[in-house]
């Protein structure tokens, strides 16, 4: 080999300072460790969910869990249906609010707004995204309930929280998410498509509806899915404004109070010390967590796949 031709103590040693090499390697390992932490976190989430949830999974009366119409863990009643149905109901209402408003705002910002206007309005919308959810919970209970729900459906429904008030609050919270994901999707549509459409004599509205929106459709689907996932996982708005204390009853009326999966966890955890050890109530917290985790994980994986599809297409 040619390498053996070089004498062992060559004056031109290109391998460099050994200490520098060691430092480089140590730093590389350090950064890898930081990146690996994110995997550790995921593993820890799954492990803690199942580690504690197992006691519930193996000991619970599953017939009761699936069929019972009441969630009252402190009284050993673990019907999960009321929680799931309230979650879906609140999420549905939230989407009715967030999808039209968020999509409309996104179409305007992406297709109609002049750059100057956009550069002012978009940051303001991002500020809305930064409002903590407790604040929206307070707003939903203190303003939306009496002034929107109360006015529309009778004053008695506006006193105290309801699933409708909470749903509107969650919807407001998800507007910026819908707007930013769908705006990104529309801006990824190449200019050439718009110009071709304009060249054929289409008006801007026609171009938007017939060319840009269909071209960006997978991004819009992604926006919807990610927003659903976010709304299902939202806790504080529902905990404050949906009106239920600790017991969830089956109800499909949005004007009733309701306990979603997330709010159920929060209210059970308020003072878990007294609950702990007494019954299956403490492990049931983790069981609901398992359902919530895998539901949102599934939605996020599908949603992110749609986001990627937009990026690959153009």
């Amino acid at each position, binding site marked *: 080999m040619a390498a053996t031709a070089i004498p062992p103590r060559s004056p031109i040693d290109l391998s460099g300072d050994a200490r520098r090499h060691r*430092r*480089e390697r140590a730093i*590389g390992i350090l*950064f*890898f*460790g*930081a*990146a690996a932490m*994110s*995997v550790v*976190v*995921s593993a820890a*989430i799954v492990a*803690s969910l199942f*580690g504690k949830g197992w006691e519930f999974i193996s000991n619970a009366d599953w017939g009761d869990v699936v069929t019972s119409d009441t969630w009252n863990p402190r009284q050993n009643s673990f019907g999960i249906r009321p929680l799931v149905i309230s979650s879906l109901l609140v999420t549905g209402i939230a989407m009715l609010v967030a999808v039209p408003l*968020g*999509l409309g*705002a996104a179409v*305007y910002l992406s297709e*109609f707004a002049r750059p100057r206007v956009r550069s002012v*309005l978009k940051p*303001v*919308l991002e*500020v*809305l995204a*930064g*409002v*903590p*959810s*407790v*604040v929206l*919970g*307070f707003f939903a209970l*203190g*303003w939306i309930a009496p002034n929107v729900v109360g006015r529309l459906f009778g004053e008695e429904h506006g006193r105290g929280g309801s699933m409708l008030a909470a749903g509107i609050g969650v919807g407001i919270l998800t507007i*910026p998410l819908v*707007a930013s994901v769908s705006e990104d999707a529309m801006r990824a549509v190449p200019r050439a498509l718009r110009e071709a459409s304009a060249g054929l*004599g289409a*008006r801007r*509205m026609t171009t938007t509806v017939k060319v840009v929106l269909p071209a960006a459709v997978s991004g819009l689907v992604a926006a919807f899915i990610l927003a659903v996932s976010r709304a*299902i*996982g*939202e*806790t*504080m708005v529902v*905990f*404050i404004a949906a009106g239920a204390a600790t017991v969830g009853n089956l109800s499909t009326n949005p004007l009733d109070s309701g306990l979603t999966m*997330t709010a159920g*966890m*929060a209210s059970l*955890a308020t003072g*878990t010390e007294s609950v702990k050890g007494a019954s299956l109530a403490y492990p049931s*917290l*983790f069981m609901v967590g398992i359902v919530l*985790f895998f539901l*949102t*994980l599934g*939605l*996020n994986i599908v949603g*992110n796949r749609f986001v990627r599809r937009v990026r690959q297409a153009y």
Partner: protein
Amino acid sequence: MALTTIESSATDAVRGRVARSIEGRRVDVKGRLFEAALVLCLLVSLAILALLLADVIGDGWSVYPRRGQNFLQNGLSQNPVKAGIAQGLIGSFWIAVTVVVVALPLGVGAAIYLEEYAPRNRLTSFIEVNVRNLAGVPSVVYGLLGLAVFVEVFNGFTSADGVGRRTLLAAGLTLAVLVLPIMIITTAEAIRAVPQALREGAYGVGATRWEVIRTQVLPYALPGILTGALLSIARAVGEAAPLILVGALTGLAGRSPGLSVGSLLDPSSLTERFTAMPNVITTWAKLPKAEFNTTDTAAAIIGMLVFVLLVNSIAIVLRNRFEKKRSS
């Protein structure tokens, strides 16, 4: 042919009529209505924000001129006229500190690995997908993680004797883990935007990989990293759900042993039972007493919102500056 005749002989009126018939109807009514509807969507969203701020300020502002200092320095109390947010401020302050100390180095380190070191292989793309999915995990689930890991497993580490295990440090660590994906994603974006030429120049004069990162990549990406840190702090300070799970005290003073009103900068708070601003707000908002659930809650919200919105706005401005610099 026809056009040239118009060009040469027609009067302005004729030319205008021809132009009109080529361009179509003058007023595109449907298009205008469509645009108006879109603007309305945006304005309604912004109006809600304005309404929310007006509602909160209208309800709670009176507390500050009346007993501002008292409100900031008093502890929780059954009596709405005396109640203050001191413990909430202490809790939120130390949570923010923990988040910066833990999540900033970890997040930046992970992002550097993913962008500068990682080979394009399955492990790397698994880590990337994993980070993205972590960003979408609901915050209550992080609360369960905190409860199982930081409260129970790290029991001895996060608590001193006699104060129980649901400490402020456990809460801070939980939220640090919660914001970690945000930190990684924003930092990675900032690093990806660093021009390749800077790296190549540094390698060309003999710098090692770490020296390239330290002297070229990190300084260039600094505004982006700062944006990530600010967004993380704002998120952590506004987050209540995980803290409920980890065991934030929601009771009012008297029923809450171990919640002292110490000095803000005393780090021994970290090993005590805790509450934080969003949890104080939640507790008060759910109380049936009107003085609590409107006036005091709104006043507490003002305190928190000023901080969160300020930090967020700085982050947004910083990012827009950075993007402008990059594209120019």
